[in-house]
């Protein structure tokens, strides 16, 4: 099976219960997924539990990966993010919704290594974010990267929850228009 992306090839092999491919996949992607989870959960031990849970899901669901619908890394990150957010909702982190999160939000300048998507996708997303009001862009980032709830956003931005929801929807629609154009 020819696959452009090594991660795609590993996922196909994992779907066939190939343990070696699973180990390769883990070696290549676990640090990134742990970074994603840790940013949301803050706690190292919890984050590693969720990483474990995520890789078990990957093992079980690899056959469902469809490269025509998702990039392999996006698919993996989504499993990890969903697991992390579900865990956070069940048991909120102590530091959730705090200002330290804000410090973690660079307005741009992503790190160079270990990119999720190609440079163009990154550049396009950055450009579209720049078109948003700063508060709204921060809201989307804090929700996506740090797992903030609408309530936490409402507290921080000192707005009613419904306003937050409205702002998020506007920001998302604007991003969609910009990205899809």
């Amino acid at each position, binding site marked *: 099976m020819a696959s452009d992306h090594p991660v795609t090839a590993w996922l196909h092999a994992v779907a066939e219960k190939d*343990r070696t491919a699973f*180990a390769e996949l*883990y070696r290549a992607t*676990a*640090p*990134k997924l*742990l*970074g*994603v989870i*840790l940013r949301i959960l803050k706690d190292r031990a919890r984050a*590693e539990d969720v*990483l*474990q*849970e995520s*890789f*078990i*899901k990957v*093992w*079980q669901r690899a056959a469902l990966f469809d490269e025509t*619908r*998702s*990039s392999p*890394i*996006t*698919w993996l*990150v*989504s499993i990890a*993010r969903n697991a992390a*957010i579900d865990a956070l*909702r069940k*048991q909120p982190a102590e530091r959730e919704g705090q200002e330290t999160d804000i410090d973690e939000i*660079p307005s741009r300048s*992503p*790190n160079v*290594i*270990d*990119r*999720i*998507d190609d440079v163009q*996708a*990154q550049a*396009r*997303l*950055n450009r579209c974010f720049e078109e948003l009001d700063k508060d709204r862009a921060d809201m*989307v*980032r804090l*929700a*996506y*990267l740090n797992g*903030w709830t*609408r309530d936490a*956003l409402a507290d921080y931005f000192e707005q009613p929850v419904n306003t937050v*929801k409205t702002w*998020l*929807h506007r920001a*998302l*629609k604007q*991003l969609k228009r910009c*990205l*899809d154009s």
Partner: protein
Amino acid sequence: MIERDDLDMLAAEFVLGTLPVEDRQRVQRLRTTHPELDAQILQWESRLSALNDEIEPVDPAPGLFARIERSIDQLEQASSQHNEVVRLRQQVSRWRLSTAAASIAAMLLIAVMMLEPTPTESPYVAVFQHNDEQPAFLLTVDLARKQLNIQPVTARPAGNQSYQLWIKDDELGPTPRSVGVLNEHFEVDPAALTNYDAELLRRATFGISLEPRGGSPTGQPTGPALHGFLYPTGEGADTNRL
């Protein structure tokens, strides 16, 4: 009726993670039966995924992969017979309906599948968790000796709450009956099933709910909704098949 645009915002906020918990769970269920919603979710995942480029990788603890492999070994060992799985899935659905009627919104359901006993096979049994998540527990029952054993897979300590094991069978009446409350080490009296006959145990459905510490105050499952998915296990038969 949900407009297309609303559906798209539902998908977007699902991906963002800002949906209220109940909505989030609803979307997780709905996407399995609504291809359009699922497609919109995948599109949003893809639109926003470049945000993750900001995140620095973090090396996991060295032993973590071995832990993952052990969990997978347990799952694999728990090989399955597909028909049995389907049958049990139906059983669980029925049980969920009946418990819902009894106003229970919430449980982590685990059903146990018992393969036909054969003389050479010791404790078999299967576990599954309802819904689409990884198994929380493996429950093993030795039918001959009526000993049971629970192993947590991904289940975490319940903090101030307790997990409680239930059995449900028509012969026992319309509502689940408590088998026991798990202690902090996820243990329950291994002899708790001694009074049930093997025939009943073989067809019964089992469940685990999250309850106030010490167990359900009402004698019926009351805990918050944790969803599981069907995960069969059963030593013996065909362990190399998966």
